[in-house]
């Protein structure tokens, strides 16, 4: 009996050790060899990004001209002052605006500059004296008696980063420094909101992150009009000639682009890269038939049919073969001889003076009538030179709108300098850069967090090293961009935010994330069932048997004791 007992123990030990080997070596080995490769992602940093505390800092220099402060007051004026403004946009996003205001009195050269006869000249000579860096502002406080501004205007906003602010009449006598500063503060803030950033702009720029409350319909439409921020844009001018048999059109697009568009784009170079081209499309028809209006003996397109114009034309425009940047289309449509003149009517059935319209995030269309050239004696086709000044004026206005350069309506009492030959003032560029940096940061954080979420949810996507690298570089750039915004270095902030957005998009759209060569877990288990089932059943049975025997033995011992 003893030998059989020894034999039984040996069998039990063998079963136990096999079970141990299978559990401790086999299962981990199988697990490791069938696992997908997942590189490490900076998850905690990404989660930090999901909670965004964005701080924007703007430097303002307030310069008191002669006759605005007395020498005693001058000593009491603080050197710097910091003002904070906090907004909570939603539970994950908070905004803080910090204005760092430095006070000083004007230098002699600046006084000379301010003695110029007109505000525009003063603006120019102040600019030649010193150039303020991107994102900062200089506000010159000028005495009430100054002749630089017309009577009813209090503020002049120049073409660069300077503004002239006329001190109020009630501040003339019996004022203390505190009173003076308290008087100036709201007005400086108003200037800041026009020239650098306003809360509405910044929340609009955050629209990728934050669902806008359905409030003002007009402002949502405004924010949807401009193109999304992108590292580059393609601008295409197309001349649509549906009737080459009756007119031969000539447009000096090369010269017009050089004269009117290129200066603006050169100025916008820090925001994005632009490439320009143009084409002529023949037999390109509009999608709708214009209605004949017998009262004015002209054809009309009313505003609700304009939406149908674009789609059929778009098929002919052709996609851009050389890049994947968004395309801004500007179409000049010359109606055929049987449908001209053609006028666009607005909602109130009035003729639109520019005869043009634009479609948000797509481009603009202008109708150019040439019916004046069809004389009865003319031989078809008629050669026609297009007046590019007229056309480019309209396209330039549409381009500004579509790029998000808002010509914000000036508050009462503000006088704005007309935009110069470049079509864009320095402060308008700053405004654009503020909102573009915030938009880039918002888009990149959304992309990165949703990518991290996706990878977290689908456990068997392979994460290659290059994706992890892109994600890390996007996170680093984002942190740098946020830090630069906080420090008020607008140029660097925009640069880093662009890098962040490019890296995040590259990671998100990497083809290796779409690869089909991974198995869902259930299929993996199904394939290995022929191995697992015959292996596990005896192990389990013998383990059960060992357990039941041990239990029986204990019961027997118990019984013996009793």
């Amino acid at each position, binding site marked *: 009996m003893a030998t059989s007992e020894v034999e039984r123990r040996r069998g039990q030990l063998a079963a136990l050790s096999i079970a141990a080997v299978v559990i401790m070596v086999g299962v981990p080995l199988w697990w490791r060899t069938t696992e997908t490769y997942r590189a490490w992602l900076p998850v905690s940093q990404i989660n930090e990004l999901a909670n965004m505390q964005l701080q924007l800092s703007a430097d303002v220099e307030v310069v008191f001209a002669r006759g605005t402060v007395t020498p005693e007051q001058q000593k009491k004026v603080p050197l710097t002052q910091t003002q904070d403004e906090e907004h909570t946009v939603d539970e994950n996003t908070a905004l803080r605006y910090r204005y760092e205001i430095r006070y000083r009195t004007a230098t002699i050269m600046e006084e000379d500059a301010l003695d110029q006869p007109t505000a525009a000249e003063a603006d120019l000579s102040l600019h030649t004296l010193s150039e303020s860096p991107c994102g900062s502002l200089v506000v010159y406080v000028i005495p009430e008696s100054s002749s630089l501004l017309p009577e009813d205007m209090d503020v002049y906003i120049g073409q660069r980063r300077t503004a002239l602010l006329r001190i109020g009449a009630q501040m003339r006598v019996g004022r203390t420094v505190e009173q003076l500063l308290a008087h100036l503060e709201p007005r400086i803030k108003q200037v800041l909101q026009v020239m650098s950033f306003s809360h509405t702009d910044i929340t609009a720029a955050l629209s990728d992150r934050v669902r806008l409350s359905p409030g003002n319909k007009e402002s949502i439409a405004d924010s949807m009009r401009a193109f999304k921020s992108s590292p580059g844009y393609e601008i295409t001018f197309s001349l649509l000639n549906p009737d080459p048999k009756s007119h031969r059109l000539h447009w000096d697009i*090369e010269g017009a682009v050089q004269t009117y568009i290129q200066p603006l784009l050169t100025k916008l170079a820090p925001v994005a890269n632009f490439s320009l081209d143009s084409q002529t499309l023949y037999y390109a028809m509009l999608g709708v038939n214009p209605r004949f209006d017998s009262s004015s003996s002209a054809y009309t397109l009313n505003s609700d049919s304009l939406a149908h114009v674009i789609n059929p034309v778009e098929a002919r425009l052709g996609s851009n073969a050389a890049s994947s940047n968004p395309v801004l289309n500007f179409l000049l449509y010359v109606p055929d001889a049987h449908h001209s003149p053609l006028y666009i009517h607005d909602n109130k059935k009035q003729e639109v003076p520019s005869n043009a319209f*634009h479609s948000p995030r797509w481009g603009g269309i202008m109708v150019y009538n040439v019916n004046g050239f069809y004389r009865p004696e003319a031989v078809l086709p008629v050669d026609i030179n297009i007046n590019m000044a007229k056309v480019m004026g309209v396209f330039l206005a549409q381009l*500004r709108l579509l790029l998000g350069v808002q010509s914000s309506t000036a508050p009462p009492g503000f006088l704005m300098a007309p935009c110069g030959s470049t079509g864009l003032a320095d402060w308008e560029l700053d405004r654009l850069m503020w909102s573009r940096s915030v938009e880039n940061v918002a888009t990149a954080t959304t992309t990165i967090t949703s990518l991290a979420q996706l990878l977290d949810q689908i456990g068997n996507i392979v994460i290659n090293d290059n994706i992890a690298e892109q994600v890390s570089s996007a996170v680093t750039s984002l942190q740098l961009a946020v830090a630069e915004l906080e420090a008020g270095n607008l140029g660097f902030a925009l640069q880093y935010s662009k890098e962040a957005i490019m890296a995040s998009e590259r990671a998100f759209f990497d083809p290796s994330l779409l690869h089909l060569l991974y198995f869902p877990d259930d299929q993996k288990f199904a394939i290995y069932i022929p191995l697992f089932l015959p292996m596990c059943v005896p192990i389990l049975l013998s383990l059960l048997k060992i357990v039941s025997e041990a239990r029986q033995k204990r019961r027997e011992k118990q019984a013996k004791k009793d």
Partner: protein
Amino acid sequence: MKVHISATGIHMEADTSTPETAVPSSVPQPKDDFQEELVIRPLHSGDIYASFQFRTLWETDFMRGNKVSHYRLFPKSLGQVISKFSVRELHISFTQGYWRTMQWGQPFLPSPPGAELWVWFQDSVTDVDGTWKELTNVLSGIFCASLNFIDSTNTVQPSASFKPLGIGNVTDHSFLRYATLPREIVCTENLTPWKKLLPCGSKAGLAVLLKSEKLFHSSFHSQAVHIRPVCQDWQCKTTSWELRQTLNVVFDLHTPGQGKREWSLFKMFSRTLTEACPLASSSKIYIDITDNPQGEQFEVSPATPLLSQAMVLGDRRTFSVYDLTQQITFGTVRSLNLLIRWKSRDMLRPLLHGERYVAGYGLQTGEIHTLMYNNHPYRSFPVLLLDSVPWYLRLYIHTLTVASKGKDNKPSYIHYQPSKDRVRPHLLEMLVQLPPNSVTEVTVQFERALLKWTEYTPDPNHGFYVGSSVISSLVPSIVAMDTNSTREQPLFSSFFPCKEESSYFVRVYTEPLLVNLPTPDFSMPYNVICLTCTVVAVGYGSLYNLLTRSFQIDEPSPGLAKRIANIIRKMRGVPPL
């Protein structure tokens, strides 16, 4: 789509240099030019060969530093491709069906079945392979074709067969890439983007005839785009870029049951012509009437007094010309519907043609035979043969034999680049002298490789295609050829530049091959896993049994007689044995 009306524009001071005028004198001479042409040749087999050619010439420089490009007649998408990828020459063709040289003679522009792409890059390109990959992807988007399947395994760099056809005498073939996709199916979705490249689209001119339901109901259809820089004048002082879009189609109208052999524009294309493209500087239809001087074989109506002679493919041919820019061509009904009635037929043999087939049996080895025919009665001439074979057919180059008239014919030049598995194909190029009136046979043996299971195409039992061989040659000409490429001549005769008067350039494509590879059962991986697991489980089970069972000596069971005896004893109430 929501639109906004912009009521305001920015006021610009009017530039006085561009006033709104209708004075033609201030109009600059356009630097681009568009021509269209249709050649119709009644073939001896009774079929009709129609060849469309559209040529856009543009005096510009795509390689300028500045990025601004303004397009008028030249399509923007192709212009962007040229400047972005620094392309010197681009030739792409999509073909459905095989050109039967023996029955139809030489085509004006040869092309192999499937898709073919060959590109010469500018020598400023540093990463040619990367640029080539990107270019094929972009082109596949433009032409809606599967050109994105071109990769290093089907791309070769021929050393001699594909010389630039435009200006520029480049010899460094590291800037050349050549690839064919013999499996590519050509259909309407390729024709539509091709038509979009034309300035007039399919709205006016000869392109109104291009209706896909008729074009693809034919024996042969081939459409191509050729871009190259060409000389503007005899001294080549100014150069311009030429975009040539060609479409060749062979209609099989000799169907039995139809009885009458009659052919018209309307019957072929279900359209008639009403106008030329207003942008075209010339718009002509040519009908080859060389074999029909007295109208004994067929008659053409309406008749035209205009006749033209052109040197094409080493022969002087006579054509009836219909000039669509002249209103008189369209007659009183304002539409042109050409009509040909056949009377009789005969046959002419082409001087050079090629054939190819796979020989051998079984799934292990095989032999590729390429036959090249020289039908010239007394002249021998050299030909360049280019073969690009995928890596999964492993060529045994030592078995290469070239024989003419039963004798060994030693090639004077051989360029062979062996394949690398999954990286690049075999490339075999050789210069062979073809004796007069002979057949030259090139044979090479190969072994079929086993592919990985993910490398098989979706329908592996259909077989694997091997692209056509290309035979390029200067064939002796019967008449003196015109070597001045800038002289005004019909488009169809001016594609291949002619360097000498006594010969002309011909390119012949052989049939593509369809080779069967050993194909596994594709549920095999799962079966293998199951089988292995079961074997492992059985082995493991017996081992486990041996290890865990406790063995003891058992008394042998009693025999059958004893058991029966025991049962009986039990019934009797007696103790068992």
